[in-house]
């Protein structure tokens, strides 16, 4: 039985009968945040967008930077942005949560805003999201019931991968431009220069639980290093793809069993997302599913997603498809990303098509190092990690391809791997450009 109620679609009355009303939240007073931040510290809640940063630290940082009021910045009231963008194409956990438990998320937003003294609150989701009517209806219900003291606004940035990055999101809310910002961080200088708390929607729904039942209750399940439950998106070679809620630390094989088991022998997993990493199947299913254990096993926890790739699929073809899409998702701000990612993607295509020479392979390895730590956001780093972990996890397959062979297919592909494949790759970017032609504004 989950805590977040993802099994049913909750109206406000169902939500209130299941969880009760949100208790009164102590308001921030001057430099002291409301008492909820202490419960959050006790709970050990960490951010579910992928970074797993302790929530209470982020909240304190926003309060701290909002009291550093300078002569020239008179408006330092914090802003709250709930991140429901879910830019990872293979992830579905936030969409499932927003569709089933929108009021838990809005409770979390209201609690966060009161605790840190925010005067504006937003929920951001992709422009083309089909959740817009559900969330609009949920907000109307709350408005009619008069349960929020402040207005929560829905905002819809463009459906771009990097637009979900937290500085890009606060840039969008503040200035209407969805590109990442460097070097200012949102908690210091976010939307319109104001300290901004950007928190994933799942994190905020856990906040709503901590506000009701306290930090000690929250810690009762899950591992001490990352307590509570976590939503997991499971996809690929499983009987039933979908989203499950489990206590952190649940072994990977148990999660796979919840999804009906595997449909074929597994050769590896993509974990964390397209900015995450690959890991070979060997022994990984015994790993406890929590950020630290998964990291120690050599994989990436990220947005809590696992994609199983079976022996009937060529992982290098999947990598070629995804890396091409990732290269196209660059915001086009930093050279190593603008030029580096298409170069890397081309190299992977050559490898997948079995045209790769040893010299090109060496160049690819150099390029993967060359694009890291040089961007204004972590998009190039994530893409490089996606490719480099894949080369390592599937080193046998790489060796075969360098020898002009493939374990899956006997015929050589005549064209670049296109949309055919297993991992979800959204439509080519051109199809998503809005009518104004400016898909970052």
């Amino acid at each position, binding site marked *: 039985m989950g805590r977040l109620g993802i099994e049913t679609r909750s109206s406000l009355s169902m939500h209130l009968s299941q969880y009760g009303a949100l208790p009164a939240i102590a308001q921030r007073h001057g430099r002291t945040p409301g008492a909820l931040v202490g419960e959050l510290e006790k709970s050990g809640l960490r951010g579910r967008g992928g970074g797993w940063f302790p929530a209470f630290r982020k909240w304190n940082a926003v309060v701290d930077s909002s009291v550093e009021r300078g002569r020239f910045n008179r408006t330092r009231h914090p802003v709250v942005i709930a991140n429901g963008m879910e830019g990872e194409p293979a992830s579905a956990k936030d969409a499932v949560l927003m569709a089933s438990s929108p009021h838990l998320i809005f409770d979390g937003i209201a609690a966060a805003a009161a605790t840190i003294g925010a005067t504006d609150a937003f929920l951001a989701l992709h422009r083309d999201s089909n959740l817009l009517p559900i969330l609009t209806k949920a907000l109307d219900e709350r408005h009619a019931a008069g349960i929020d003291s402040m207005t929560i606004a829905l905002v819809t940035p463009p459906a771009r991968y990097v637009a979900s990055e937290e500085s890009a999101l606060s840039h969008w809310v503040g200035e209407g431009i969805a590109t990442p910002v460097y070097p200012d961080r949102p908690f210091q200088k976010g939307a319109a220069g104001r300290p901004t708390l950007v928190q994933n929607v799942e994190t905020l729904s856990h906040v709503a639980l901590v506000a009701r039942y306290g930090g000690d209750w929250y810690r009762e399940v899950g591992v001490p290093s990352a307590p509570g439950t976590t939503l997991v998106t499971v996809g690929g070679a499983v009987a039933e793809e979908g989203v499950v809620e489990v206590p952190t630390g649940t072994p990977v094989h148990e999660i796979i069993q919840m999804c009906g088991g595997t449909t074929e022998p597994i050769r590896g997993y993509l974990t964390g997302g397209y900015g995450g990493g690959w890991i070979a199947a060997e022994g990984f299913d015994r790993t406890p599913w929590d950020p630290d254990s998964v990291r120690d096993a050599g994989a990436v926890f990220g947005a809590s997603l696992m994609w199983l790739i079976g022996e009937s699929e060529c992982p290098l073809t999947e990598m070629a498809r995804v890396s091409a899409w990732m290269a196209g998702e660059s915001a086009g701000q930093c*050279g190593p990303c*603008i030029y580096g990612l298409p170069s890397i993607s081309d190299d992977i295509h050559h490898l997948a098509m079995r045209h790769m020479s040893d010299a090109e392979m060496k160049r690819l390895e150099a390029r993967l190092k060359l694009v890291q*730590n040089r961007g204004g956001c972590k998009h190039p780093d994530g893409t490089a990690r996606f490719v480099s972990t894949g080369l390592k996890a599937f080193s046998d397959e790489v060796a075969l391809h360098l020898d002009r062979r493939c374990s899956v297919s006997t015929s050589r592909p005549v064209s670049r791997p296109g949309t055919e494949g297993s991992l979800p790759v959204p439509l080519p970017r051109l199809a998503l450009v809005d009518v104004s032609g400016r898909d970052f504004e």
Partner: protein
Amino acid sequence: MSTPDPVVSTLLLNPTVCDGRGLCHHAAPDLIDLDEWGYPILPGGGLRADLTKAQVKAAEDATHACPVLALHIEKRKQ
């Protein structure tokens, strides 16, 4: 035995501003390298590079050469 020179300041690169004109490399070829696409590589490969006293002059030359102000030197607090 020689002790490593103390770090006196930090060279910072803002990659969202940098256009890859390459003038920093021409002003300070020993300090700043260019990648295959013409974008600068700082010592250590990241966006921040510690500078010893001997490197400060070159870093200043590179910073002043940048037409888009993508480089910046931050003095270490003593």
